């Protein structure tokens, strides 16, 4: 076996590492756009699924533009921090697009006492308006996610999707099945006084109950995780829901044009 001097070994490793580093950075930069597009399209696909529009990932951007109107971010005081018009493809207000918000970061901010801003997606489907609220929580093995679509009363669930990263197949992973998701439709997240009570995922849920659905047998930990996720994340929008209600109540004389944030309210206003 050949003998190599220390100098050779040092130079050899330095050159090797440098070459590999350059190669990897070039590839990573070259493919970055495509990878990000994939992630964004998937997010749109999942938002569309929440309003019961099924599509392939490639079609998602077009359909997203067709069904979704506005993206809002609100803080836990109910103030609208930013607004993005999907049709015009530009920010109307603020500078952070709701679509680009990382839920995990915002949740951590909130936990540490800072103010987080949380996304709301306004859609119009079959002439009816509504909003989609994304949530994120902890299952048994890893994060679980959902998108909850609420009807124009900002209360009744019209659609929902769940996803997870590593729940047990056949048990916790069943949250992504139609069997688990279907009962959510028609449930309500607010009680009679307009307080967020969320929807509990529990054993022997009463099918007629407005705030509960059946858990997955054998997937108790995941079911509890979903339950806690909905309760925690929906509660962050309490102030937003309150402010919408007050607006709607006051709006009898105020022109609806003063509220450009979400078409939804204009509609509600004219109904009142």
């Amino acid at each position: 076996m050949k003998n190599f001097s220390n100098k050779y070994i040092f130079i050899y490793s330095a050159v090797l590492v440098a070459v590999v580093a350059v190669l990897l950075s070039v590839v990573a930069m070259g493919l970055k756009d495509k990878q990000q597009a994939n992630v964004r399209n998937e997010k749109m696909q999942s938002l569309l699924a929440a309003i019961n529009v099924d599509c392939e990932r490639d079609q998602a951007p077009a359909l997203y533009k067709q069904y979704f109107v506005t993206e809002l971010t609100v803080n836990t005081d109910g103030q609208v921090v930013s607004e993005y018009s999907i049709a015009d493809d530009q920010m109307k207000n603020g500078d952070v697009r709701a679509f680009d918000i990382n839920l995990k970061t915002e949740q951590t901010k909130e936990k540490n006492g800072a103010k987080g801003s949380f996304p709301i997606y306004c859609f119009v489907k079959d002439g009816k308006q509504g909003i989609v609220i994304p949530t994120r929580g902890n299952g048994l093995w890893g994060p679980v996610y959902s998108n909850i679509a609420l009807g124009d009363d900002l209360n009744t669930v019209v659609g929902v999707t769940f996803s997870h990263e590593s729940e047990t197949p056949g048990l916790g992973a069943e949250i992504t099945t139609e069997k688990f998701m279907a009962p959510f439709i028609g449930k309500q997240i607010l009680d009679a006084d307009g307080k967020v009570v969320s929807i509990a995922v529990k054993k022997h849920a009463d099918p007629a109950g407005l705030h509960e659905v059946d858990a997955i047998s054998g997937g108790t930990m995941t079911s509890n995780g979903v339950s806690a996720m909905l309760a925690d994340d929906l509660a962050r929008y309490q102030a937003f829901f309150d402010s919408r209600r007050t607006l709607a109540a006051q709006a009898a004389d105020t022109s609806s044009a003063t509220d450009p944030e979400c078409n939804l309210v204009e509609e509600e206003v004219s109904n009142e």
Partner: protein
Amino acid sequence: MSNNSKVFLGPLAKNNPITVQILGICSCLAVTAQLKPAVVMALSVTVVVALSNLIISLMRNTIPPRIRIIVQLVVVSALVILVNQVLMAYVYDVSKQLSVYVGLIITNCIVMGRLEAFAMNHKPWESMLDGIGNGLGYGVVLVILGAFRELFGSGSLWGVPVMEKLGMYKIGYENNGLVIMAPMALILVGVIIWIQRSKDKELQEQ
């Protein structure tokens, strides 16, 4: 058999990385719940083993023995990151399913095992054949496991609901949840090893 074809075909049966060399069991348990990720994993591993064998073999006379493991690791990790980036860009769904397991190709014993055992002292062409052979040998087992587990665990093959189409559920058939879990994969690997050894007397230990 010529030397090259022996190098290439050996790992497919007599010297199979999973059933004979007992390498790469971890990832084999993890990705075979369905056929599709199993096939993608097999292909990714084949590409990585073949290329890393080739590259290391080309470099073998320049690599100082004292840092050879580090050099091997750098080459393998670079290749794995490349594979991961390409999967993320072009077959996003699959890359999501494989998620952490792609990263685990680095720790797949087959890769380092073949580099140490073969590529460090063989010519490039031979080494590449050895890499492809080992990758495919690994792939064969993965595909068998994936097909079996998807068919009996989820009642489908490559996402097609075979069992439902055959009307099996109507006559009281149910999917077996245990088949989806990792322990069942280990049992199945055991069964494959058993069958192979009972057929091939050469493999039986005295």
